[in-house]
């Protein structure tokens, strides 16, 4: 089986973000970057399929500047076989531009399965996977939380509000991965050593003119400090009054 996984380098989300001087991007100073969690689960899914199907090959693809090579190497150290950097000065905000550049590469690879994370937490558009599927003319299943491949056919589960959906699809197909599919493995030291020697190709990105651009970035308003109105039952009338007159929720 030939499997491609598209991965994105994203900032660690557990930090306080600052807006950059240009007002349209995040200040990158002090940020730590790693592979998007959803993409790491996609890599893990690919590696589990590879473990089950001897002779499979897992290719990891990332679009962006040279720093994304670090993200590709991480996937290689987990066990992927080869990497491709689609080189661009920066990652556009417009998901369609990304999808076009990625699918130009994906269509030449003859992949049986193409995996994406269901979204990346930095831009939260969640469109790149489905758009690439459309451009490639392939069936697309989004936000899968289980995956089974047998006899050239796939079965996946999707978590819905209060229900689960089981879907079936032919190969080749494009899938986007949700939380809960698996727990991504850590690279072993042997894996880290081996990753150095694995092939990593660099190709220029064919980036279309972006149709969506970010005009302004704003932080949410600071939450006001809470107020303690009083204690016990005696405080209730005042609380009700404030909820009616100030908060206007009653």
């Amino acid at each position, binding site marked *: 089986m030939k499997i491609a996984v598209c991965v994105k380098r994203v900032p660690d989300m557990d930090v306080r973000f600052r807006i950059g001087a240009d007002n349209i991007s995040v200040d990158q100073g002090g940020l730590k970057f*790693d592979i998007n969690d959803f993409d790491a689960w996609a890599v893990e899914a690919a590696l589990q399929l590879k473990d089950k199907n001897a002779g499979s090959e897992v290719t990891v693809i990332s679009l962006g500047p040279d720093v994304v090579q*670090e993200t590709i*190497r*991480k996937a290689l*150290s987990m066990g992927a076989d080869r990497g491709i950097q689609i080189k661009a000065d920066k990652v556009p905000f417009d998901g369609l531009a990304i999808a076009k550049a990625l699918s130009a590469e994906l269509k030449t690879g003859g992949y049986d399965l193409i995996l994406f994370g269901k979204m990346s937490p930095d831009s939260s558009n969640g469109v790149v996977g489905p758009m690439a599927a459309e451009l490639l003319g392939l069936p697309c299943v989004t936000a899968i939380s289980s995956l089974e491949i047998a006899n050239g056919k796939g079965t996946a589960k999707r978590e819905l509000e209060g229900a689960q959906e089981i879907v079936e699809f032919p190969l080749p197909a494009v899938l986007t991965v949700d939380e809960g599919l698996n727990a991504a493995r*850590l*690279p*072993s*030291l*042997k894996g*880290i*050593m081996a*990753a*150095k020697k694995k092939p990593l190709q660099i190709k220029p990105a064919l980036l279309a003119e972006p149709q969506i651009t970010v005009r302004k970035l704003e932080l949410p308003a600071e939450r006001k400090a809470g107020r303690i109105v009083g204690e016990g039952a005696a405080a209730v009338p005042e609380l009700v009054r404030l909820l009616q007159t100030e908060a206007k929720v009653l």
Partner: protein
Amino acid sequence: MEDSLYFSEQHLAVRNMVREFARGEVAPVAAELDAKAEFPWANVKKMGELGLLGIPWPEELGGAGLDLLSYMIVINEMAKIDASHAITISAHTTLGTSPIVNFGTAAQKKRYVPLLATGKVLGGFGLTEPSAGSDAASTRSTAVRKGSHYVLNGSKIFITHGGVGEIFIVTAVTEPGAGTKGISSFIVTKESSDLDKTKRLGIGHDDSLTSMRGFTSGKKEDKLGWRASDTRSLVFEDVEVPAENLLGEEGEGFNNFMRTLDSGRVGIAALSLGIAEGAFEHSLRYSTLRKQFGQRISSFQGIQFQLADIATEIEAGKHLMFHAAWMAQNKQPFSKQAAIAKLYCSELAMRTTIKAIQIHGGYGYTKEYPVERMFRDAKICEIGEGTSEIQRLVIARNLLKELAD
């Protein structure tokens, strides 16, 4: 020193992996293992799978084939979260395995190193005796040659992995009256004291190892810190050790363990520094959350100065430790640098954890916050693998020797 002159991209990849492992698998269990003084078998298994129990050994011997700096990075990262896990790696690798790699015959390496490097079996190092601590040359254990074997008698005390380990390097006198030149070292084997657990997990025991008659471990020490690490005495009663288990030549035991301790000291420096860094990170974060007098305590200059001092000392410690490791890696004499790094970083761990509790106030004195455990874990770093006093002796001896040369 997120990035530095010492690190390659690969070093950073190793660090990220260990950091993720330590935060994900070690941090959630560290307090409980400490409270129960329980050896972290489940994590030892995972560490073995990740290659963390044979980092610097060649791949032919089952190791990961990485350099010494990578190994120090791993000990340092692990200790930021939990010193017991870090000493498990360090004692197993430097004390339990390196003497066989460095001084063993081809046959000894082939027989024992793959078992140790893959984490199948844990190793340890028995030097200290009840009457031979800092003065390790006054070893009393004896090994008397009888035909094709030696008969070993005596006891060792405070041996890391004494119970859980199966392969040990121990020293004994083979030529009484010859002083340090009369001490030899041997590879001895026994069964793990946790056989049921090791069988359940499929690690920690190997059936092919001889369980030498008369070689036993004593009761587990109830310690102030490093509580999830297993420390015990070892007892030898007429143990028949095959002559082929002599490690190095007869009379070389003392010299060899001195060399082993030089590397061990860089490891303890890395571990101590990790404790200091971990305690500092907690304190820095806490100081920006805790409010008194209507302000975050981090806005008080009295707290800021403490944070600035600790950060400065930690930065100095990093340079001492990574430089000593770099010298060792580049095969330069590093005995003095190792002792300096060990002395400075272990005393730094103690100073820092005391300040860390102070910055946390009463909360830091409770088990709700990890700085309490870090404070207890720091003290042994000033004692194990040579006390601070002994480090000063080693440093001074080197200084005077350099002057004489």
